[in-house]
């Protein structure tokens, strides 16, 4: 947690490494400069941070690294606005403002011994990757892991540099797909929901996590329901316009809950019980 007495004031972090994932997604590894602030920044998988480019503004970005990675924090950022455009011009040695971590994160403690089905689309893999790597680093705490991940094209797949490592993990079934392949692509071709149906994971003792574009989520939810996943077993992490990230500025609410503070992680059962604008 950033200093409790200065809620909206970030601390400074330095980029130690930055590299392109795709033509419009760049991953940043950052370290918080101040030792006390760095030690106080203890995130759970699925939490978010408010990153600043001073002079451009702030953006809420999910922390894609697992808390088991203590050397640095990772953020994989898609270029799609004023702040993120600027971020894409930055590299090692440049400095961000950072405050957080914020939000509820995934209830991983309650998932011990369960099978995890992780379903991601596009940059939507970033927030759930924190769970994937957490589960890999605590492999014995979890059951079978199924990953279904897809992007528009091979060049739009993020975290390609992780696939080899993930593929070598025991009891991890990796399914990477693209909407459209190219000459070099020899993997699966098809939309994420289609591949999910092929994989047909069992709902027994399982949790399904999903994050991706709204249209993908819509079909994934339908398919999971067909596979007899209960709404309590389906977990997603929401995106929305967030400004302050501390539940004050007003805009990211779903009913009486704020995505930034009470979310971003919700079960489908929780979302079903809320009236809200999505």
């Amino acid at each position, binding site marked *: 947690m950033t200093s*409790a*007495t*200065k*809620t*909206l*004031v*970030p601390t*400074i972090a*330095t980029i130690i490494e930055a590299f392109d994932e795709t033509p419009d997604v760049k991953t940043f590894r950052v370290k918080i*400069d101040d030792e006390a602030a760095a030690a106080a920044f203890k995130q759970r998988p699925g939490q978010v941070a408010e990153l*600043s*480019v*001073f*002079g*451009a*503004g*702030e*953006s809420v970005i999910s922390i894609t690294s697992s808390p088991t990675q203590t050397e640095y924090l990772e953020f994989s950022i*898609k270029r*799609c*606005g*004023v*702040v*993120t455009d*600027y971020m894409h011009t930055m590299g090692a040695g440049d*400095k961000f*403002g950072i405050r957080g971590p914020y939000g509820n994160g995934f209830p991983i403690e309650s998932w011990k011994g369960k099978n995890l089905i992780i379903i991601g689309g596009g940059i939507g893999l970033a927030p759930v990757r924190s769970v994937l790597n957490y589960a890999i680093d605590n492999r014995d705490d979890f059951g079978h892991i199924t990953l279904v991940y897809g992007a528009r094209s091979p060049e739009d797949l993020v975290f390609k540099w992780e696939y080899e490592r993930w593929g070598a993990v025991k009891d991890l079934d990796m399914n990477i797909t693209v909407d459209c392949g190219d000459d070099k692509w020899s993997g699966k071709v098809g939309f994420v929901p289609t591949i999910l149906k092929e994989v047909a994971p069992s709902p027994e003792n399982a949790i399904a996590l999903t994050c991706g574009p*709204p249209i993908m989520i819509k079909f994934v939810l339908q398919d999971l329901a067909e596979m007899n996943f209960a709404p309590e077993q389906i977990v997603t992490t929401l*995106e*929305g*316009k967030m*400004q*302050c990230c*501390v*539940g*004050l*500025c*007003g*805009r990211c*609410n779903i*009913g*009486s809950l704020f995505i930034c*503070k009470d979310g971003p992680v919700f079960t489908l059962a929780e979302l079903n019980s809320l*009236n*809200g*604008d*999505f």
Partner: protein
Amino acid sequence: MVTKILPAGNLQAWLDSLVAAYEVYAPVEGDGASTFKKINKGQMPAMDIRTDTPPKGLIFKQVEKILSFEVNPDGITVIPGDENGTKKIVFGIRPCDSRSFTLTDKPFFDPELPENQYMGHRNASALVTTACTSACRTCFCTSIGGAPDEKTGDVWMMDIDGKYLVESLTGKGEELIKANEALFSDASADDEAAAKRIGEEVASSMPKLNIADAKALDGLFNDDAFWQKLTDKCLSCGACTFVCPTCYCFDVRDEGNTRKGERYRGWDSCMFYQYNRAAGGHNPREFHWKRMRQRMLHKFSYFPEKYGDIDCVGCGRCIRSCPVSYDLRDFLEGSLAVTGAAPVGFEKELSDVDEKVRTCEIKPADETVKTGGL
């Protein structure tokens, strides 16, 4: 706590003494709009007007500097904005406006993530509340749990026929009276009875609306036609939110360049298209009726659900300042009819007063009150 009488002739002397020690803000007639302004020695505030803009901005600043930053060879220097508010008195604030701060306190005094700058201004301020001895046609404080003579703030006072009954409600308020004790005389039981009577008279002159409870209103969420009809004439101008004493949405913006500049938080409005537009273009509230639904349900459903109180004080400013005469009371009454829900019913409904009050004689001071667009 003390209860005293301040002869009307001593009001200026009391104010002057306060002005000497504090920044004092009070209702002042202005060009175009009346508002709370810093008053000087010898200046009598416009005690009988209802200001067009609320005193909200004295504590929840319209623009507040969160930090300034500068890039230097060693890194980035960040200097947080000031968190120590200037000691000030908000004098002549009406019970509804005074109550509004107790509502905004709830989210801003969050135990885990407090908004320190708001807290700084709030803690440095003393509120001297002036009870209402008449109601405007747009007032509905009694319908949302308030009262024209509600004892809220640090000092409470009421004009009882040429003199003021003044009561301290907090230690902070007591200081303001004690430091000027010579100006006050003791209050009698008769004085207090007179104040009570005036309060009751004003309250009974006001129409009483029933309001559906938070759950029932949330149940209206999916009735698109209801919201579309309600929002038909709305221009999304946001005037209602800027004159609202309880609206507290804000935006955060950086000024300057990436080498040197400042970051500010400033009032925002949920009625604006940009309010919910995310990077990439997705906008869950792209239509104005969805934004109206957000504004109404935040005040009357989400906030009560979370904090127990309706986030509206019944000041009626949104009704008076709306360029197309949208009346919040239409929503309250309409929603009750549609939901068929049990009303919250703070007090028993008064018989046939509605007609009487809506056409009541307007006192000269009330003539400045604009009725939607006229």
